């Protein structure tokens, strides 16, 4: 049975629709403001309004030549973060529904300034922007750009400050080099200390959005394993495959009605009955009839697949070259294969074999061949033939998809030089989306080259931290809906720790206390039962969940065994290292680990962020977000934030009554 949510064909399309509030201004040739008609920034301002960055003003003026204030820029930044939250997620860790605040926080967040007050128009947006910046760049990140107790929200923002706040979108390794990037890409001109005009800010925002839309932001990273192999986005998935005049013949009318029903999701048995009749008649549009029969949700997927291929047969029987149409027909086959994977492991190879049979009909290097080849390559990747796919991608014309797939799979094999040489040989049109994509790919390649040194930096900082004689942890976390807040004192000399705090269960409106002692050298811990006034002892040398095992691995092991990937960004006085571990790799390793939670089935997300104070080389904070799905259907979502402080005089003795008062040892 075919599932109507066709992710791979339509995801891009749906997203595009959701993200475009209105195109009204462009269409009706009326501008949202009266003072931008002849201004050089008109296009960018109009786009900003359409994307929700700028609100309509009472006097219908945008004032493109006025200086933009810090408050105005931060509000715009907040809207840029919101618009691009899905793409930024590998670095912000924020899940979509929790954009408005971290879900592990107990206290309402606030701004580190005295001159921005709660009950003002700018407060909420600036607070949101500041929260995103905190996750990106560490505690009080906004303070690194605007130091002191006052933000001076109505002061003009300088170009340099604006550039630093946009660092994430450039993926610049250091906030000191962002300015060079931004000017060399002509996002901005002038001096860092010059104030920024409102029109120029609109242009800057336009460039940022274009870069994100061109997939120039971390194009190679495939955080959840869902992105690669990349296939083209298809705009029109329900075409008629023919042109019909105003007064169609009865069979033409029947066909048009059926297509309309499927398009409107009002298709039923009669719809497909009508199409079946047409299929066995002399009705000439066989491509359309079979294509739409492949959408029948009530027939087995095998039958849908037969119709999908019949449509391709009909296409070639027509002998009319329409590469876009062939692309849609191949996308359809690919989509059905994806849906069949759960029941048929061989489906990709089988589909590949069938689809390959058309290759001999078309001439290599034509656009028509590209339409077919991109799906052949995708099927090759999915059936484990990455090498074959790579050579196919490299044979294809220089489409964005070919570029992304080539670089991604070369990088995956560690062939960074080859990937770079491949990219350098491509000369996209100036100011094209492809040029932006190429830049993004090159930038990400350069971060991949730094893996070794970043890994060493992180290992050093963590080792440094472990050598402290004691430290204190302030943590917030959310685990399967349970929210925790705790402080922990760790005595490294005695290998003991004491934790106090509270938590809230998802079904409850009130909190419960929590307290425990851990004795690392004996692998035991004592958890207090506040109701019974007792202490419960348990062993800590087994793993309940897979993330615990991952955490017990050294950074070197994570790289070697789990293909962990690292990104270093410096901001102000902090180094921020983000760690991504592919879920697939964790899953592979889990087969040899005994987990109390039972066998692991999938790891949709595994990200850590480490915040290091550069001067003292100390780990000051850590954020994480893990999701694990177990065979028992248990879904574990775990995210949190910990802040660390050295506490050399930490002494934790486990009190005798805790050890003696122990009950219920298993």
């Amino acid at each position, binding site marked *: 049975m075919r599932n109507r949510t066709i992710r791979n064909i339509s995801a891009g399309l749906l997203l595009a629709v959701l993200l475009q509030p209105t195109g009204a201004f462009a269409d009706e040739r009326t501008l949202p403001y009266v003072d931008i008609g002849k201004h050089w920034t008109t296009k960018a301002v109009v786009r900003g309004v359409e994307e929700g960055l700028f609100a309509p003003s009472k006097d219908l003026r945008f004032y493109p030549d006025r200086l933009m204030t810090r408050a105005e820029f931060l509000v715009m930044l907040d809207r840029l973060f919101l618009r691009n939250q899905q793409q930024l997620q590998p670095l912000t860790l924020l899940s979509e529904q929790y954009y408005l605040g971290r879900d592990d926080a107990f206290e309402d967040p*606030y701004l580190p300034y005295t001159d921005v007050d709660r009950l003002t128009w700018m407060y909420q947006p600036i607070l949101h922007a500041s929260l995103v910046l905190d996750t990106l760049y560490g505690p009080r990140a906004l303070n690194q750009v605007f130091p002191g107790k006052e933000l001076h929200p109505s002061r003009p923002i300088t170009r340099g400050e604006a550039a630093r706040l946009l660092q994430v979108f450039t993926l610049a390794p250091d906030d000191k080099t962002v300015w060079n990037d931004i000017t060399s890409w002509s996002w901005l001109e002038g001096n860092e200390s010059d104030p920024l005009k409102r029109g120029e800010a609109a242009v800057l925002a336009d460039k940022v959005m274009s870069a994100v839309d061109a997939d120039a932001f971390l194009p190679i990273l495939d955080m959840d394993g869902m992105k690669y192999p990349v296939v083209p986005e298809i705009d029109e998935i329900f075409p008629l495959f023919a042109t019909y005049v105003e007064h169609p013949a009865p069979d033409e009318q029947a066909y048009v009605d059926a297509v309309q029903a499927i398009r409107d999701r009002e298709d039923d048995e009669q719809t497909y009955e009508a199409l079946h009749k047409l299929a066995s008649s002399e009705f000439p549009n066989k491509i359309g009839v079979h294509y739409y029969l492949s959408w029948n949700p009530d027939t087995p997927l095998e039958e849908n697949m037969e119709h999908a291929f019949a449509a391709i047969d009909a296409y070639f029987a027509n002998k009319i070259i329409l590469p876009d149409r062939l692309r849609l027909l191949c996308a359809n086959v690919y989509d059905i294969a994806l849906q069949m994977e759960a029941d048929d492991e061989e489906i990709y190879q089988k589909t590949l074999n069938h689809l390959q049979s058309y290759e001999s009909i078309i001439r290599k290097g034509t656009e028509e061949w590209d339409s077919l080849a991109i799906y052949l390559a995708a099927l090759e990747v999915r059936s484990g033939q990455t090498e074959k796919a790579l050579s196919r991608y490299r044979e294809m014309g220089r489409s964005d998809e070919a570029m992304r797939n080539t670089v991604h799979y070369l990088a995956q094999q560690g062939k960074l030089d080859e990937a770079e040489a491949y990219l350098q040989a491509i000369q996209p049109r100036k100011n094209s989306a492809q040029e932006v994509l190429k830049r993004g790919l090159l930038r990400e390649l350069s971060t991949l080259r730094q893996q070794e040194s970043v890994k060493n930096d992180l290992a050093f900082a963590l080792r440094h931290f472990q050598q402290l004689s004691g430290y204190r942890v302030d943590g917030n976390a959310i685990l399967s809906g349970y929210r925790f807040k705790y402080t922990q004192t760790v005595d490294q000399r005695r290998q003991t720790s004491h934790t106090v705090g509270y938590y809230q269960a998802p079904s409850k409106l009130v909190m419960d206390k929590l307290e425990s002692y851990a004795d690392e050298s004996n692998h035991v811990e004592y958890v207090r039962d506040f109701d019974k006034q007792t202490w419960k002892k348990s062993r800590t040398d087994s793993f309940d969940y897979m993330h615990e095992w991952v955490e017990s691995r050294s950074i070197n092991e994570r790289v070697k065994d789990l293909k962990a990937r690292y990104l270093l960004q410096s901001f102000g006085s902090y180094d921020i290292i983000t760690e991504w571990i592919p879920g697939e790799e964790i899953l592979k390793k889990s087969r040899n680990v005994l987990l109390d939670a039972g066998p692991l089935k999938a790891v949709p997300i595994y990200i850590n962020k480490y915040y290091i104070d550069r001067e003292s080389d100390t780990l000051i904070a850590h954020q994480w977000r893990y999701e694990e799905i177990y065979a028992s259907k248990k879904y574990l979502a775990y995210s949190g934030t910990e802040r660390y402080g050295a506490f050399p005089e930490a002494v934790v003795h486990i009190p005798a009554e805790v050890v003696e008062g122990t009950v219920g040892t298993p």
Partner: protein
Amino acid sequence: MRKLLNTFCLAILLQWPVHGALAVEASSPFAEIEEVMDSLMENHINKPTESQLVQGALKRVSEQIGKRAKATVTPSAEDDTRSEMEYRLREWQTRYGLDAAGLNRTAIEGMLATLDDPHTMLFTKEELRRFQSSVDNEYVGFGFRLRMQENRLMIRDIIPNSPAAAADLRPGDHLLDVDGISLTNKSFEEAFALLKGEEGSEAVLTIYRPSENRTKHLKLRRATLAIPEVSGMPFDGNIGYIRLDTFGSDSAVQFRNQLLSFMQKGQTQHGLILDLRDNGGGYLSAARDIASLFMEEGLLMYMVDRNGVEIETWVHNGQDVGFPVRILVNQGTASASELLSGALRDHGIAKLVGTVTYGKGSAQQVIPLENGDALKITLHEYFTPRHTVVNHVGLAPDIAVKHEIAQVLEALRSLGVTRFELRESGDEVTVNGVDFPVAEPIFHNDAHGIQVHRAVLASLLQDSAIGDTGYASLSSIGKPVKNLAVRKQGPETILTYTLQ
């Protein structure tokens, strides 16, 4: 560290099926009882036990049976578990033919009665709507306020954008009858009972307009009215006055606008009087936002739940005020009002003037139930930043004074005011330019001339020996009163006093 949370959670996860099972049973005839019982046992601050709630439910239901079915059923002391309760209720339901909805409600009321907590209550959808409306100062009515003058009901003022404003109704009109029922010699309460009604319903009002010397009939339709939560006026001499009726969802913004307008005109130069008398509270978030208009940063309160977990609530990103503040409080100042008063006092920002406050130091949350009803449940007790207990005791004022006008006088005096002018006309008294409604007049005219309420005199002259009930003429108080004069001018009686 990670390890701890895991063990911890694993232990809790094992209990999950219990909740799951309850959710599934939503179709049981006693689903609402179950749901309320769970919520109370898990969350209510008094940690009610199962047997306590079961007994309470059975007791109340048996009393109802006694009243309705004239039968005597005695709940057994041995029925103290959930399943025994359900068995008993089912038995009684069949035997006495009780309807399910009524039975659920009665049983829940019985449970709630055992809590010794008047603030935990069950709302139907309609009751919940009304509760929320009252917090947001929304009422159903015509949109005019009345005053009693010489035994006649008069339109005092008309609320903008109300049915009354749309009709030909003016302040000063006399209200003669409602739907043909005469209001002559009727009290305020009786008149109010005749005027109130459902949203959308109509009534014919008969009015008399003295200026035109004619009687008119007006047909008006009752509507939901959003009455401003904040009202403000400056006292003469640049002291602001803000009255807050409730802590509704729009209060903080209205409050900020009023305060900003005062500050721009310099009308808080010598201070601000915040009137929280008879303000029964509202949303905590509104109290926090309003507190942020008085302080840049500071602790607002501590909240403690049944498990002894103490949470601090802070104000951040506010602004400090540069002028002294007095808060008028009385026994009707409750909940969020007490919270705000306590916090501003503990931080040295405000002094409280009036009487001991209500003493509602608990916080509730409204949770929706499966069937559309809602439970308002007490979760926390709160304490002021200095850990002062509010619950059941209230806050004692810094300046204790009982009489409603004397409270205003004391607040003004403590802000350094030396000149007072009180004007009375009808049921309203104007103190240094700001109007206050009064329950009883402060002046009394008879053959002996003008007499003044003793509490007002005692406050002005700072002499408690004068007493606080009844009236006294200036000559009778037994000591020379300089700079104090009372006169009559048209319908007004005016008192002026200048401190030496």
